[in-house]
């Protein structure tokens, strides 16, 4: 048994380590960039909604429309469809670099909806209280919406990370690298099913760790749970 594992590791250890590393980089960078775009979008949706602190029917409609389009495009199709633009943007459409633009474009609208949902959980009375004290819309966003929704935003973060991880596996089909690529190249194309299953186990462990860490983080910062 041990020898089998040792032999397996000797053959594929480096492949797995490299794949894991690539997956981590893709997920990490894409998540960060998706939040850089998604948070302002989600905030804008909350602020401009009809009951929002700065209702704006047109802007709300347009943003909602953009987000819905982004959400309805299957990632596999978006990935291929924007390849020319990806090349223009980062110089290549393959590898970790090539995977990041489609990952971000696909994840940002998802993140925007997650953020919108979290912010909509903030008690309307608290927002009204801030308004009654003369808070500007920007102050309400910075000092009420975001801090009050933080535990929920963190939990949403776990869902976003796991979703992006799933996207990276799809990106593996077109040579993005990472654990998804290994599963497809070795497991599917070359028929090394044992390696495919090992990548699956790696992915499961990754998802478990992410969920556990984000749950802990959310609880740790939530002052309603004292």
């Amino acid at each position, binding site marked *: 048994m041990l020898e089998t594992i040792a032999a397996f590791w000797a053959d594929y250890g480096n492949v797995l380590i490299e794949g894991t590393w690539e997956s981590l980089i893709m997920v990490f960078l894409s998540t960060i960039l998706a939040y850089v775009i998604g948070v302002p979008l989600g905030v804008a949706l909350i602020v401009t909604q009809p009951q929002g602190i700065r209702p704006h029917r047109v802007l709300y409609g347009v943003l909602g429309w953009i987000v819905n389009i982004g959400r309805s495009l299957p990632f596999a199709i978006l990935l291929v469809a924007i390849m020319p633009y990806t090349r223009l943007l980062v110089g290549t459409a393959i590898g970790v670099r090539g995977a990041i633009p489609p990952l971000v474009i696909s994840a940002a609208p998802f993140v925007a909806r997650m953020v919108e949902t979290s912010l909509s959980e903030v008690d309307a009375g608290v927002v009204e209280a801030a308004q*009654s004290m003369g808070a*500007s819309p920007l102050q309400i966003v910075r000092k009420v919406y975001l*801090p009050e929704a933080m535990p929920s935003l963190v939990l949403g973060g776990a869902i976003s990370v796991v979703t992006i991880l799933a996207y990276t596996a799809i990106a593996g089909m077109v040579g993005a690298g990472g654990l998804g690529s290994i599963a497809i190249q070795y497991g599917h194309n070359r028929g090394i099913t044992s390696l495919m299953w090992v990548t699956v186990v790696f992915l499961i462990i990754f998802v478990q760790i992410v969920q556990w860490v984000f749950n802990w983080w959310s609880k740790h910062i939530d002052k309603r749970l004292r």
Partner: protein
Amino acid sequence: MQESIIQIQHLSKTFGGGENAVRALEDINLDIRKGEIFGIIGLSGAGKSTLVRCMNLLERPTSGKVLFDGKEMTALSEKELRLARRDITMIFQSFNLLMQRTCLKNVCFPMELCGIPAAQAKKRAAELLELVGLGDKADAYPVQLSGGQKQRVAIARALATDPKVLLCDEATSALDPTTTASILDLLKDLNHKLGVTVVVITHQMSVIEEICSRVAILDGGVVAEQGAVEEIFSHPTTDAARRLVYPAGVSAQQYPVGTHAVRVAFNGGTAYQPLIASLAIDCGVKVNILGADTRNIDGKAFGTMLLGLPDDPSEAAKALQYIRSQPDVTAEEVEYHA
């Protein structure tokens, strides 16, 4: 005549438009004076909350004017309005504290909004928490506090910008009677100490009786009556006022015009006093219970009773004097009007 702080002139507010339009407030005229505790009472749906939100322009009136300290609030720009709101702050039924901030940080919040340096804000916030009796709770989070304590933090927060007016929107409606009494005492105390004008919105007659000097009765979006509290209580001239002043289930039409009656309010005496029986035994005066709506909460008597007094004026006076001499009981003579 004292100086006015809030004047509401011909204010109307309609929600929605077309066929679905709801007229929440119609031609409201109010004059709230500097330094007083003014009550606005009405049943739910009467428009109280909309009216109070029109005072700080959280709701924009459809027509009419709101003058605050001589300034026309309705004519201010967004930015000017935000500045004006520092002078007319608000507390709420559901407290509306920031749950992710400590009490101290909650009180600092309005000062942060207007750019007061953090150290200075903290110092003042600590003083304010001391003032509302929560000096030891500075580092506690709202979730760790009772309802009454949360409202005290909210009051401290509302006072942080040194406002001229404190609006209280059903501020005691979520609290038990004992806590309500302590919050009302605090408001009375702050009104006295700081000279802040207090506007109290409530559906509870007892709250008005306890702290207000003048009251407006709101009914179906219009001011049915306004004036000094004793005046309104002893001579309610409109149906809306009668509904609030008389105990539940008592209809003025049941009794002949001119019935001499007294409205007795039990304000939380230590036990149910056998008031009617002792009145008969001690004074030899027999009164008639026209209606009663009393409750026993934690062994304390709350509620109101309407008693028909004897026709003989001296007997009636004797009975009144006796009732008024009882602890935690207030009595107002009531005259039925057609």
